């Protein structure tokens, strides 16, 4: 039994008057992959974005309940969002490399944090790109624009960019939904590589993907967490009728 790195208790989130999360209780052990699945609009992205406070950017959002990262309340008045996001990185649906070179993309976080040692930066670039399983494809054009890469390569560079700031948790919101099947399976392989060293939480619409890569799966519906369990239990033997209906494609 490993320790819980991230805990959510009775989490409610309102967009204005509209309640998008209705009391979520969900905890994550350190390391491993958890998949969040559920019909469109059920609040998966909303939930994921509360975990590194990305919802702060949206006006009129009210959040109640507690989220703790290693026992520290993420929403405490003195919590530092910048520090939080260094520990809890995020990869988005649409690959969003900065319009700079591949090299600069990967070290951007570190460079801004003040790291100047060229050797160290070089090492981080190589290590991160290797971890993201894209090193062999880009090693000869590190100083060319990241925008010139394919969507799948861009997405893996974005993963490398997050790895370079060495977070503990990586959040991914449908990272493969804008990619072709080959790129998608490369990303899956990348994540499987990372699962021993990072706590990974991934939103996906692709149930096969969840069953292939996730250790644990959480099923959301209408702003509520219906159930969470080992992935094989969710898929083979769900406890709730709604889960079974969703898994068997009866709605959603």
């Amino acid at each position, binding site marked *: 039994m490993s320790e819980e790195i991230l805990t959510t208790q009775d989490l409610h989130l309102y967009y204005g008057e509209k309640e998008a999360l209705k009391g979520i209780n969900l905890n994550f052990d350190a390391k491993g992959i958890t998949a969040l699945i559920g019909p469109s609009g059920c609040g998966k992205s909303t939930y994921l974005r509360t975990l590194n406070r990305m919802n702060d*950017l949206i006006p009129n959002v009210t959040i109640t309940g507690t989220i703790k990262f290693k026992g520290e309340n993420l929403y405490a008045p003195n919590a530092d969002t910048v*520090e939080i996001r*260094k520990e809890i990185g995020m*990869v*988005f649906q649409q690959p969003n490399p900065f319009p700079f070179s591949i090299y*600069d993309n990967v070290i951007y976080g570190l460079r*801004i944090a003040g790291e100047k040692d060229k050797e160290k930066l070089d090492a981080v670039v190589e290590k991160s790109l290797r971890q993201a399983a894209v090193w062999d494809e880009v090693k000869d054009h590190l100083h060319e*624009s990241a925008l*010139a890469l394919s969507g799948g390569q861009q997405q893996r560079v974005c993963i490398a960019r997050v790895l370079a700031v060495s977070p503990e948790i990586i959040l991914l919101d449908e990272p493969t939904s804008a990619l072709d099947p080959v790129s998608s399976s490369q990303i899956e392989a990348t994540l499987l590589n990372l699962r021993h060293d990072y706590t990974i939480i991934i939103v996906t619409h692709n149930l096969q993907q969840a069953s292939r890569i996730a250790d644990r799966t959480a099923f959301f519906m209408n702003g509520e967490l219906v159930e969470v369990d080992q992935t094989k239990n969710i898929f083979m033997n769900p406890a709730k009728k709604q889960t079974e209906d969703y898994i068997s494609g009866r709605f959603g």
Partner: protein
Amino acid sequence: MDTKKQNKLAIGALYGIAGLVVLILLALLGYILASGLPQLSWHFLTAPAKAFLKGGGVGVQLFNSFYLLILAMAISFPIALGAAIYLYEYARDNWVTTTIRTAIEILSSLPSVVVGLFGFLFFVVKLRLGFSILSGAFALTFFNLPLLTRSIEDSLRTIDLEQREGGLALGLSRWETVTRVILPAAVPSILTGVILSAGRVFGEAAALIYTAGQSAPALNFADWNPFNISSPLNPMRPAETLAVHIWKINSEGIMPDAKAISSGSSAVLIIAILLFNFAARYVGKRLYKRLTSA
């Protein structure tokens, strides 16, 4: 008539209108260049103007135009940049920002002669700056600020929200995201906006007639101490610009070759503005390439 014919007719009409516009512009440009280019010479571009005699040049006016432009840009660019960043990156939509935006809208549609008269009353008279480069630069700032702010805001708008989220999700602060991710990505487009607005400022006359004044005292180009009255850098001296010079010659010029000087000045002005425009495109493209493929 069937739709195919209608379509053809409509396209034909549109081509016709577009062609007409281009033709008018080319004719104007051609006329100005044809009558102006023969007047141009090194002497014309560098010599001081003469009030009563023939053979004057526009050297001082040309210098004044550039000096005023640089000063006005140096004042208005940082303000516009700050305002645009605040409005687009930080401010949330509320009555304060709505008011600021409305004010910018109104200011940007203010006729420049009104800006000029305001500048005259406020800077020249009230603040006792007199007819001076400084008064002119402030008036130009008022003229330029709203347009520049809007153009920088538009440049920021072209950068996807995903870029901001990407920056923040890496643990950059808001400020770092703006200055290290958004601004570099927006530089080419911001620069294009700046150069285009420089063209507008360069050709502006009405805002300057009553602020920078209509006289161009001879300058001593060997004296770069800004505190000396004949130094080109002195910001307190009156400074007629090229655009004002054209206006003045045509309304009250009494030198025998007024027509020729006016034509020559117009050609210089047009060429300068054309160069600004080409430079804007070229520099914008080059910078974007450099920034995106380091």
